[in-house]
């Protein structure tokens, strides 16, 4: 009984912290339509700032807490709203998610940058040493403070929403934004206020959790995924239900840890232990199943149209052949060690490629690409220990089936809820399944990662072995090129058109008598198969993959980089693979190991500006004239080939080569621009558009309306 009361009290403390976070999450989602994935990162910011003020600078405790709550919290919220969030108005749900995910990754990397993660940090609890003893049951004052703080927060929030004008404005904005605006409520002001409140709540949670869970940016960021579950139980609408959800979760976590987790002598407990730590995520998964079915909706008008043209057959073939040729060409330029590292590029690129049909075509955001890849790697290792190509096939089949199953459980869901479900799946795999000890099903014993000693043998076919880094690098490129061709073929097929239609307007899709669930399941299967092959190739590149290669955060970085480059093209997938898989940045700046994640985060946040991605928004418009003007293209090709030959024969060094190629890449578009015969003259442009950057009916569709456009339109 003492134990039970002990677990209950500590469960209530856990619940209180979850509740504070979840309420903030619900508040911003309701008032601005943005689900802030970075809420956990803000909690971490709060905890680390508190440590900095209280411990490192030795401020008096009340002053440190007051600074956090009165200054740091609101300021973070306002800065976020002013600099990032307000730009998200009128973008798609996927863009909103990616931007906040980027904020999550970027903030956590930034914290690790500012606060050296190897240094030991701890914060003493409030009123440390003071304990209330009720008949042998000890309750630390800190617990009482945390629980009562959460209660006060809940009551204050309720009072704010229902008893003050500010609250009424907030609720009005939620109910009907347009009507509220017509009644003189500024949605901008409402948004600022709710961001300020929400981030203050996150910082408060950070202050409360700091003495309890230790200071580690990643585990704080991930821990708060648990609070998402509470918010979903509250259906992202109701604060009281959210509070109840947090209560349930907190008690559930602590009871299960206390009774199951700490009784390793229970039969089967070695399998359940990992489960206990991902329990909130499973609750999240289940809670999602009970959400009311989202009504089919037409698309809301978007500021920028987020789709692109189908690749032409010739273009796709040229692209794929080019990839393989480049891979063959680049091998002699890499040092053996860098070549060994670079073999990972193709695995990551394939996994990113698996997102093209799913995210790019069908508009279904999945945040679990690496979880499926992990399954692929394990399957290949177990199905083909000798490295037969059947391993790739088996990986594709198994992950396709798993992909379909995931989509079936999430089939009623779309947008945010689908993303949450896939996040739950990824965390479950990462935190539990991949670490399972050997288990036996139907007489067959599975030992997934064999405690970190799993070997994925590099493949061989037709008497050719790819065990060397050189051969495997080219093999990876070949697999990627073939998969790229397949994806391009899908885009041109009926199925591809249906997926685009599904993305553009689910309601239109259903109206035409098409079955959107079947299409969703099919695209999940296709994407799963490619992710599985990618996982097998990645595993074989590393040869001894540990589960951490396929971690949730790893998957997030890959997803973000992919979305930043543009979700529609194999080129973006390759770029994402290069950034995540190749060691270029960290080799250039060895002391800045967080640089990559930070840059990915920053670039992702920038996505709010133009959600089509870098390739579509910047690279393609710049390079199109080059492709049109043969002379310039030929000149560039000859220069590159000459530089390459000189490098391979050792006449010039690698750095000179990089310099020359950099020059070609930078200047070629400018040269082409000058030579471009199709370039409209200034006079033609003015005549065509009356000073507009595009015909008036196209403004805002393919490119943003410029300031000048707005002025012209206003004048007219």
């Amino acid at each position: 009984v003492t134990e039970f009361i002990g677990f209950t009290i500590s469960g209530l403390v856990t619940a209180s912290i979850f509740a504070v976070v979840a309420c903030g999450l619900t508040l911003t989602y309701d008032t601005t339509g943005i689900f802030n994935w970075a809420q956990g990162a803000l909690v971490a910011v709060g905890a680390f700032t508190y440590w900095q003020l209280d411990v490192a600078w030795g401020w008096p405790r009340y002053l440190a807490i007051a600074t956090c709550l009165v200054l740091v919290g609101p300021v973070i919220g306002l800065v976020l709203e002013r600099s990032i969030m307000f730009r998200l108005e009128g973008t798609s749900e996927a863009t909103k998610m990616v931007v906040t995910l980027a904020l999550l990754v970027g903030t956590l990397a930034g914290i690790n940058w500012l606060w050296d993660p190897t240094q030991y940090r701890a914060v003493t609890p409030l009123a440390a040493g003071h304990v209330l003893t009720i008949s042998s049951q000890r309750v630390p004052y800190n617990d009482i403070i945390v629980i009562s703080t959460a209660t006060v927060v809940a009551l204050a929030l309720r009072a704010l929403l229902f008893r003050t004008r500010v609250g009424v404005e907030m609720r009005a904005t939620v109910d009907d934004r347009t009507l509220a605006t017509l009644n003189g409520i500024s949605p901008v002001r409402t948004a600022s206020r709710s961001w300020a409140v929400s981030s203050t709540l996150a910082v408060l949670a950070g202050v409360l959790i700091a003495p309890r869970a230790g200071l580690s940016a990643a585990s704080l960021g991930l821990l708060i995924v648990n609070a998402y579950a509470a918010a979903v139980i509250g259906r992202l609408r109701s604060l009281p239900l959210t509070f109840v959800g947090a209560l349930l979760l907190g008690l559930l976590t602590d009871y299960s840890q206390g009774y199951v987790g700490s009784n390793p002598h229970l039969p089967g407990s070695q399998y359940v232990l990992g489960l206990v730590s991902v329990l909130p995520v499973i609750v999240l998964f289940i809670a999602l199943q009970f959400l009311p079915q989202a009504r089919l909706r037409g698309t809301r008008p978007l500021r920028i149209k987020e789709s692109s043209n189908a690749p032409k057959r010739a273009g796709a073939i040229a692209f794929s052949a080019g990839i393989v040729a480049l891979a063959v060409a680049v091998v002699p330029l890499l040092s053996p060690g860098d070549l060994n590292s670079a073999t990972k590029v193709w695995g990551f690129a394939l996994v990113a490629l698996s997102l093209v049909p799913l995210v790019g075509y069908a508009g279904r955001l999945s945040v679990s690409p690496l979880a499926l890849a992990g399954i692929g790697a394990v399957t290949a290792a177990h199905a083909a220990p000798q490295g037969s190509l059947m391993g790739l096939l088996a990986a594709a089949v198994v992950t396709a089936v798993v992909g379909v199953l995931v989509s079936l459980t999430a089939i009623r869901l779309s947008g945010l809820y689908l993303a949450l479900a896939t996040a739950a799946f990824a965390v479950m795999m990462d935190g539990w399944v991949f670490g399972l000890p050997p288990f036996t099903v139907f007489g067959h014993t599975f030992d997934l990662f064999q405690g970190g000693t799993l070997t994925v043998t590099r493949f061989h076919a037709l008497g050719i072995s790819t065990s060397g880094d050189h051969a495997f690098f080219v093999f990876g490129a070949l697999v990627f090129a073939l998969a790229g061709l397949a994806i391009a073929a899908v885009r041109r097929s009926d199925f591809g058109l249906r997926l685009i239609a599904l993305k553009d307007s689910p309601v239109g899709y259903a109206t035409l008598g098409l079955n959107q669930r079947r299409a969703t399941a099919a695209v999940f299967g296709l994407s799963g198969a490619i992710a599985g092959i990618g996982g097998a190739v990645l595993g074989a590149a590393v040869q001894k993959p540990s589960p951490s290669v396929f971690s949730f955060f790893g998957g997030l970085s890959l997803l973000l980089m992919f979305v930043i480059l543009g979700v529609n093209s194999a080129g973006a997938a390759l770029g994402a693979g290069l950034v995540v898989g190749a060691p270029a940045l960290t080799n250039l700046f060895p002391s800045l190991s967080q640089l990559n994640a930070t840059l990915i985060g920053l670039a992702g946040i920038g996505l709010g500006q133009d959600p089509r991605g870098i390739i579509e928004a910047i690279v393609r418009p710049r390079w199109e004239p080059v492709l049109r003007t043969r002379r310039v293209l030929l000149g560039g090709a000859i220069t590159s080939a000459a530089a390459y030959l000189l490098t391979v024969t050792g006449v010039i060094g690698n750095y000179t080569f990089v310099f020359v190629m950099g020059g070609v890449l930078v200047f070629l578009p400018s040269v082409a621009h000058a030579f471009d015969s199709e370039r409209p003259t200034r006079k033609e442009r003015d005549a065509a558009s009356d000073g507009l950057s595009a015909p008036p009916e196209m403004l805002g569709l393919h490119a943003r309306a410029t300031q000048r456009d707005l002025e012209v339109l206003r004048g007219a």
Partner: protein
Amino acid sequence: VRSSFPYRVAAVTIPLVALAACGRGTPHAAAPTPAGTEASPTTTSAAGVTDFGDVKSVCGPGSGTAPSSSARGVSSSEIHVGVVNDATGPVPGLGAVYVDVAKAFAQWCNAAGGINGRKIVITSRDGKFVEAAARVVDACQQDFMLVGGGTPLDAGTVSARAACGMAAIPAYVASTENRKSPRQALPTRAGNTQVNVFALRALAAQFGGAFKQTGVIAIDNPSLLSVSDPLRKALPQAGATEVSYQKLPNTVTNFRTYVQPLKGKTQALIAPLAPSAGIFQAMSDVGYQPQVILDPLGYTYAQSLIDALKSAPVRSPYYVSVSVFPLEIADQNPTLKKALELTRALHSKVPIDANIIPAWSAWLLFAQSATACSQELSSDCVINKAIAEKAWTAGGMQPPTDLSDVEVTSPCRLLLSATPKGFTYERQLTKPTDGPFNCDPENVVKTDS
């Protein structure tokens, strides 16, 4: 082995740091050797060769002409040696001490005349935690050997090393696969079929009753469990009874649910895991105060344990058992004193770090063996000289270790007490038989696995 991945938010959680701690430090191994066998059979007191503390014939100009060599990485005047580490990976600074020690040693050795006249040239092979195999491939292009380093995920480096016949004298090995791989000499490592239960025996007189009700806290992490599980199996043979076992998941949100069940049931706590103020705070919160807390494996011999004890109240006596010469009494060992002086001269901020001694041990073994290859310098010769050592002590910095057998666990350990003020060598409790170590052969018990 769980770990995080670079280029992204490094999941730098407890297990990772623990993992880093786990592979490192704590040398075990070796047959029981009577005290005082300092000079090893291979050391020859040739002219022009300098000793390092109590280690004989380490570096020097030799006879004037460098021995012939056709080995990779060896020129007429230089030997290129790689140091594996993860200093700029997701856990910044992991293994940075290996590079510090390598530089300090090379500076001293080159000043003394080098390896028979050849200067040692150090190259840091920074594997960033998951790129270790790639860095070994790099090393295969230019390094003679890999010395005095190590990386937690070292199973992946075995095939890369085999591919180019790279020999190594690492400061530590993490995986069984690497421990058993050829062309290696391991001055410090742990066998895993034999367990040293010295700490329990040493504390039996004072806390024997408490150990009848022992609680064990471990972390659910394959590489950490591979050392804590054999220990648990050995407990009965050391007169201890495990009545509660708490296996913490990798990310703990609430230590109290794990500490609560220990209260009332257990009188002694065995905690061979990463020290955490969270655990100590939870103990204080639920009012759990065992008669004694013990880390019998020595993985917590680090500044971070002292920091944790400073920030959370622990009233129980806290002991850590290690098998390296205590850094706190380095003055009593000329070799260690010199090693610490050189390390700190290069890098003034060297905290208590159980990895300093294994790194020096590897370098001294390498240099002594390489110097002994006075006819022809090849990595085979160096490894053969090194594993011929039957009682390697690195000048008394570690207990005598038989380098020809990687499975034997040394009977020698000693006991330190840990308080917020730091670690203290417990001579009375240790009852030393050999230098500061207690080398009673009965310290080692065999387990069935």
